């Protein structure tokens, strides 16, 4: 019967050997291109496979064709393995002694599906910056937020060797989980992995000499009472900036240099004055000078931030199930190996 012949073909071990060895050959050849084209293949680990293929892989098919070909062969091998597994299930009564071997087969199928799933609908974001106390939306998970409570670098001989980040994952206002994450101990929640990578310091403002009041800490949102009446509000600060000849103020970098303050002056005038003030570059704008505002930035104010890798891999729970099945299968197969060999329990395929 055709149906039966087709099923036997799908379960055929010879087909498995052909698929696996062709896949191996393709990957042997292809993988040697990996170190030769680091700009092409390097980002393969920074993106899920499909996103990599769309953005980079498909741009140079003459170097990357082997990736989809090997993928297709492995998918066929996975299908072949699944058929073998189903065939075993159907004949479980006579073949239960092979449970270990077939848990390995099932594990392989689950791992493959898990990998495919994650490659197609996963998301990977590197270098996500969260400052202490900040709450950010989790990329790709609407309604979920990450909150960084504290951050503590671990240094050895002046070099950062680890970073300890107290993180909270929230859905809406509800805390789903809390984790003190560090190297090898990420925040893991089903398909989400949050890994602290490094830390840095962000200039958030300046300790500034403001002659009538003495030294003040200016950060966006600060408000200063001006002795002669009125209020000075700090709307924004660029830690290092310059003014173009046309008058436009541009940011030159994130580290402290010549700061620029975007200020708003509320005084008796009906309309508040608003504008940029670059105290290290130019005299105070006339409106500020009249109100007696003269700022002299003394030193930057820092707030530490963490840099995180955030990965969403919807295939991970399935892959983890596959790994568990394979692990159990290996243990079973090892334990039963000698017993089966004594019984002469061994298929012969011609």
């Amino acid at each position, binding site marked *: 019967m055709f149906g039966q012949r087709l099923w036997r073909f799908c379960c055929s*071990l*010879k087909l*498995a*050997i052909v698929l*696996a*060895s062709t*896949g*191996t050959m393709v*990957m*042997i050849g292809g*993988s*040697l291109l*990996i*170190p030769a084209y680091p700009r092409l*293949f390097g980002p*393969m*680990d920074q993106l899920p496979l499909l996103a990599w293929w769309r953005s980079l892989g498909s741009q140079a098919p003459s170097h990357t064709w082997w990736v989809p070909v090997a993928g297709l062969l492995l998918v066929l091998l996975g299908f072949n393995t699944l058929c073998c597994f189903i065939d075993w299930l159907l004949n479980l009564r006579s073949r239960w002694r092979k449970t270990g071997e077939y848990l*390995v087969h099932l594990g392989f199928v689950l791992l493959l599906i898990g*990998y495919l799933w*994650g490659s197609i609908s996963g998301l*990977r974001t590197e270098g996500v910056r969260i400052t202490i106390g900040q709450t950010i939306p989790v990329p790709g998970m609407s309604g979920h937020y990450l909150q960084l409570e504290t951050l503590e670098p*671990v240094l050895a001989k002046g070099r950062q*060797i*680890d970073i300890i980040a107290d993180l909270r994952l929230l859905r809406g206002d509800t805390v789903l989980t809390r984790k003190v994450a*560090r*190297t*090898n*101990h*990420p925040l*893991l929640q089903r398909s989400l*992995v949050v*890994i602290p990578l490094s830390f840095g310091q962000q200039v958030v403002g300046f300790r500034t000499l403001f002659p009538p009041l003495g030294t003040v800490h200016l950060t966006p949102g600060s408000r200063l009472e001006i002795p002669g009446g009125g209020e000075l509000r700090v709307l924004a600060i660029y830690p290092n900036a310059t003014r173009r000849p046309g008058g436009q103020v541009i940011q030159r970098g994130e580290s402290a240099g010549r700061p620029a303050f975007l200020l708003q002056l509320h005084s008796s005038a009906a309309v508040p004055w608003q504008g940029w003030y670059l105290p290290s570059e130019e005299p105070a704008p006339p409106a500020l000078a009249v109100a007696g505002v003269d700022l002299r930035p003394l030193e930057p104010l820092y707030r530490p931030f963490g840099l995180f*890798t*955030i*990965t969403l*891999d919807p295939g*991970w729970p399935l*892959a*983890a199930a596959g*790994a568990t099945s*394979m*692990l159990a299968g*290996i243990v079973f*197969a*090892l334990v039963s*190996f000698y017993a089966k060999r004594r019984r002469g329990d*061994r*298929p*012969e*395929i*011609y």
Partner: protein
Amino acid sequence: MPETKILPFIILVAYLAAASLYPLQLRWRRPGVQHVAFGLTATAFALQSLFLGYRWWLAGYLPVTNLFSTQFFFSWALAGVYLYFELRYRIGAAGLFVIFVNMLLLISVMGRDAALPPLIPALDTPLFTLHVAFSFVGYAFFAMAFSLGVLYLLQRRTGTSRLPPLAQLRRLNEEAIFLGFACFTLCMLFGSIWAQVAWGYWFSWNIKGVWSFLVWLFYSGMCHAKFVRRWQGTGYAILSIAGFGVVLFTYLGIGLLLSSNHPLE
């Protein structure tokens, strides 16, 4: 630590003495020689295990983080695999290749820095220890399969009574491949879980990751090939030799020829 120079040397001398007795035993066929050779190997292995255990205790972690430690561990795994087959099947000189590689590793170890640096947080996880330990034990079984494969081909040509019969060599080879595959699967599983918690993805497309998967796929193929009539015996012996070539390239070739981002390099 002076013992890091002296002990490997004593262990090496014991292995060397055993390795010289085994071929003599092939000539003289005296059970006494075989016993002495076995005794020397077992003593060397016991010393090696003690030394490994001592360094483990000193460091507080299984020392497999630098070249001295990994080569010493691999050498220990090779000797362990050899003893397993020797105890079970009295393979004698049939496993000499493994002892020979083991000695080469010990010689190379003696020139290296034996320091036990504090474990950096990136490697401070049992997943790393399991990953590395199972990989080396797996490689040791693959080395044994290589040795048995070469002997199978030799025996097929010579038909000598000094070597184990073909049927036994074939069975031992299949067993070494199966046990090696089982260990290597565990190595890959623990490595993948480690990658997931360390990087957020469990399969890396760097060349070492791809080749480790290929090694695994190759030996999984061999676990099946033994059921196929045409691949039994000679075909299997050739596959064992080729497989070890792939292992060597993955372990040494990639590190030497090409750069990779594997954490151990």
